């Protein structure tokens, strides 16, 4: 991949910084010389400052003014607005009796903003289908796992604020860790398995229910 351009234009000098400093010192010296010719330099014939301190540079490349464009942080001990995010789903494991090679199911994401339970700000449903992951690619304590295709079957995904919501058409690798009652996610296929859902296996029905819930602050543009 070609390295992307820098996010910000760098202020790196394209000429030797000390050269530049020397030129400015020349300029300062000439200016001082122009002011009536008094030698105030204490031995410096052209009025040069005695030391090469940063103040004497027009641009001090080692002390860039770090102006990020941001003001001081605003203390906000409780968010003005919150969103309660719930992800809840179910896997039906087949063939019955195992070893399981496929899975079907669903995932619902519901988001309640500012406690308005009757008016979810987001409610979507994904249909899930998956095929088993080879054992050698599973996480250490995982019993079985699937490459699961997410297909949005209902709702407007754009309404959802969950930073980790799946996109329609996404394939995610999830695996069951019975000892922890957790479904682990191979985070976007990187091979990094992290606990993703709290799960509950119904051994009789051979179904695995899973859920995750969190409340976060959220920025909402106020109506004028």
């Amino acid at each position: 991949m070609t390295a992307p351009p820098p996010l910000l234009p760098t202020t790196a000098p394209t000429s030797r910084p000390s050269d530049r400093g020397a030129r400015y010192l020349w300029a300062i010296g000439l200016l001082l010389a122009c002011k009536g010719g008094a030698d105030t330099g204490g031995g410096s014939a052209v009025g040069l400052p005695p030391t090469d301190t940063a103040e004497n540079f027009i641009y001090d490349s080692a002390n860039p003014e770090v102006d990020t464009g941001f003001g001081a942080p605003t203390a906000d001990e409780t968010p003005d607005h919150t969103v309660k995010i719930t992800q809840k789903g179910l896997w039906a494991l087949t063939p019955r009796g195992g070893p399981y090679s496929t899975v079907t199911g669903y995932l619902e994401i519901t988001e309640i903003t500012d406690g308005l339970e009757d008016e979810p700000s987001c409610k979507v449903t994904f249909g899930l289908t998956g095929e088993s992951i080879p054992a050698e690619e599973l996480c250490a304590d995982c019993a079985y796992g699937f490459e699961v295709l997410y297909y949005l079957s209902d709702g407007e995904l754009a309404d959802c604020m969950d930073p980790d919501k799946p996109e329609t058409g996404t394939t995610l690798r999830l695996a069951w860790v019975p000892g922890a009652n957790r479904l682990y996610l191979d985070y976007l296929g990187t091979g990094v398995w992290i606990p993703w859902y709290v799960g509950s296996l119904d051994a009789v029905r051979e179904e695995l229910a899973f859920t995750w819930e969190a409340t976060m602050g959220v920025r909402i543009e106020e109506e004028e």
Partner: protein
Amino acid sequence: MTRTSLLLLLALGCADEGSNGGDGGSGSNLGGDDPAEQLPLPDVASLNLPAAYNAALDAMVGVGVSRPWEGLRGAVDLSQAGCPDFYAGPPPGDDLEDFEGGAAWMDSCVTGGALTYDGYAWWRTDLFAEGSTATPEGQVVEAQRQLIGQGTLTSADEGLFSWAGEGSDALSQVESMAPSYKAWSYSSSLKGSVSGQLAFAADDPTPSGWRADLYVAFSGGSTETLSLRGDAYFFEPVIEGTFDSVSANLDWTGPLSAGPTDCALEPIGTLSIRDQNAFWYDLVFLPESSTDTGVPAACDGCGTLYIRGLDQGELCVDLTHIWNGTLQPPQLEDFVLSTRDIGLEG
């Protein structure tokens, strides 16, 4: 107006004054007393400049998004329910109105463990991975991080993490295990300051942190390249106990990638270090840029040393250790910072 024309005008201005009563003899004569020749120069006899430039290069390639990201992850790990408050997407306020997605913390609060969070940090990770390292085709990964913030985390007696600025980085990697193959390119662009033990281990070459405006890019595996553009101030003279700042504007093609016209023994460009008196020591490897059409310098690891802009002759520095595994991109797991890491469940 160029600097040259500015100087010319200044010189002419002096000439005018001179004609009105000055000495009139040297007003426009820039070739007379050269003030540059009267610049006091530091005593370099006790300095190990080759070691200093090596340390400077090492320090610069360590300046990037990974450090504030580590601090952010540490701050997230130490959070408690409600302190700080986490946000889905950017936090309120005008600062980040043009951004979307990701997650953030923003608060001014104290945890039960007497940790104080003050400020905000917003981050976003985009990861794409396809394939498996176990296959001959291998795994292709594209990963990006973005981090913007202005905040601190402090304990009762020390600062744990401080970050103000913005940065982003990107990793592109192809890896397979059979046959064994790995190629990657990485770049980081950052403008800001970072400090604190959550971001810097005690044995870090720059343990006190830094303030930087730097673009760094390098590649490895099938290619070896390095580019540095910008400056960094390390708060302390961490380079040979004398130099606290580095400025770089260089490109370098390593031995693995060097073609007939490349020089793997030295970069193209300038590597500058600044001592605590604010004296700059510039090491210039010609040609000064990849577009310079001037006479190419010898490929010998030697450049011209300028101190305070004055030519001090040739200085030979073996910087090639940089190609011996020093340049390493972040691990893929370093890009993972999800809502699950925040510990919001319940």
